[in-house]
């Protein structure tokens, strides 16, 4: 009798099993996939994440002298494919999940990167950082090639080959 009464009293004073969120912060596991953040210091603007992104939350466009990588969280599904494919490790998924906001702008992150223009015709090739990344990998005598757009490069190569073979033009 006493035992059952004790059990009853214990049951009555047991705290609720419901988590007290939002009054207390909610713990999420180590590998939780939350808001992605792009590190503007590392990003080279290559667009690998844009190609992989299933919902099209990431996009790339040129704005004057800049190439802009735009992340719109309203479309993001937090799959983390951008993090997987980024060649320089610039995208990282954080553990943040409380993203509700009254302003749409809070859901946008933009990374602006300076464009490298073709040394001959002046058309944009790629971002300066991406060009530098490719340049590093080339032998020194070929490095100038990355500063020329593909079309001009073809033209120059043709001229060089022509010169070597002894053609008049």
């Amino acid at each position, binding site marked *: 009798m006493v035992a059952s009464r004790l059990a009853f009293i214990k049951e009555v004073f047991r705290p609720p*099993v419901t988590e007290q969120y939002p009054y207390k912060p909610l713990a*999420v*596991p180590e*590998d*939780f*996939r939350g808001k992605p953040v792009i590190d503007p210091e590392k990003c080279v603007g290559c667009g690998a994440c844009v190609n*992989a*992104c*299933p*919902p099209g939350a990431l996009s790339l466009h040129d704005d004057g002298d800049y190439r802009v990588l735009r992340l719109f969280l309203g479309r993001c*599904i*937090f*799959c*983390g*494919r951008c993090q*997987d494919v980024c060649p320089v490790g610039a995208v990282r*998924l954080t553990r943040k999940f409380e993203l509700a906001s009254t302003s749409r702008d809070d859901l946008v992150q933009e990374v602006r990167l300076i464009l490298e223009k073709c040394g001959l015709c002046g058309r944009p090739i790629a971002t300066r950082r991406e060009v530098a990344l490719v340049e590093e990998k080339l032998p020194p005598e070929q490095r100038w090639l990355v500063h020329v757009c593909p079309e001009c490069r073809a033209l120059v190569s043709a001229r060089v080959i022509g010169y070597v073979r002894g053609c008049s033009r």
Partner: protein
Amino acid sequence: MKCYEIVSRYGLSDAICLNDRLALIRAKDVVEASEKLLSLGPRYSTCIGIDYRPINRSYLVHHVLALDKDGLYIVLETQTHDPEPVVKSITNIYPAANWHEREVMDMLGIKFDGHPEPYRLILPDDWPDNVYPLRKDYPYDKKPLELTEVLEHPEPRFYAASVGGDTDASRAEIPLGPYHPALHEPEYYELIIEGERIVEARYRGFFVHRGMEKLAESRLTVNQVPFLAERICGICGYTHATAYCQAVEEAAGIKVPARAEYIRSILLEIERLHSHLLWFGVAFHILGFDTGFMATWRLREKIMDLAELLTGNRKTYGLNLVGGVRRDIDEAKAHAVEEALGFIEEKFKKLIEKIIGMSEIIARMKNIGILTREDAKKLGAVGPHARASGMDIDVRRDHPYAAYKYVDVKVPVMDGCDVLSRILVRYEETIESIRLIRVFLQEMPKGGLMAEYNDIPELRIGIGATEAPRGEDIHYVMTGRENKIYRWRPRAPSYMNLATVPLMLVGEKLANAPIIIASIDPCFSCTDHVVVIDRSSGRRIPLEKALRWN
């Protein structure tokens, strides 16, 4: 090879073996071919219409039949070069083909000659005629400019015989839905009652077509589709992602590393646990037993935490890519899963045993919502719903995939054919799932998580089938150029099971309708990829009209 063996055993000389578990029959006469196959006792699985005009100016229709005893899927192909495509219907041979063929009619404009109810099923009432969204010349982002007038409602013809009191005055019509018929999803039932008794039931669904097939075929690349596939369902999404990946892997001949197969299976079972617990909760809630609802959902929360721990998300796991999985399960995580499973198993057994002992609850379920074995077989019911009606089918055992190839799966079958049997089948399945996760965690081999592959070869077909918590989930994929998908057709298990609901409702008391509808664990959004069916006449009902009836 296994496929050749089976095909030659049955004397199917015209069958082409595509791989171990898939054979293709190019039939000159589809009716003749399907009648010939009928003697093997196949289960009708799905039908796919393909606009093949960009390839060779024809339309293809692929019927998929499952030989569960032999673990073989047979694709029955018919082709037509006619610009106004017409093929023969096989609905008279396989009644389960009814909705499937009508869907092909709506989406691709392929007519089925001899179909008993050749009416619109998927497209909304005001969609213009002769506009077929899944044809390749229809842009994915185009909206039809002119919507047509909705049709007048046809005179209802009763398909279920009424018992006594057959004057119209004694009948009343009760709309159930379209917002919340059992689950929080849009589906509409119209029940005709006499007194308390349901004498006729009509079902109208397909309100939430989201154009996923078109989106995948036109915009996405192979490795983006798994994330879309996962969003077909809000409960069993991972099983769709897995089925899709398996279909592509089968089409392209990609061999998935064993460890990835085990991880997929563990997650599939975790998904089944959470889905079944969710369903128990919903069923108890509908029966007015909210304590049971709270208690099961409390346990379910532990499973959701497990999913979050293993994948980084509670629900949309997002772990699948074609060729493998994206995250490993390390020792610490495996240990956490073991621990949680122990807790869940003990509490769950105790809870359900107590509930099964409550006579009030049993009385609300026993001999309610009867679906006989014959009807289940005829309409192609799948999953726990079919197993509660005595059909011994389970994709995990019959067409083994992922890590189910390496273990024995116990399949509970009951022949009560009522709601109680459906509860008990799911109870045993839950216990079996817990056992399977433990076995998988123990036997999981070391190794890589992702297969190496180059580009996907084009125009190959593959079928990925998984046992979703609700039954067989089947995805058909035809690969395309440049790592894209030419045709993708997912068929969710509720597609088959929903057709059985009106049968179960007729003759029951009105108060039992919600639990009968819920007893198949319906997943409407899975099925709808949208509008009307009137079981009585097979014609569509404009919703506005239907709602105005009194």
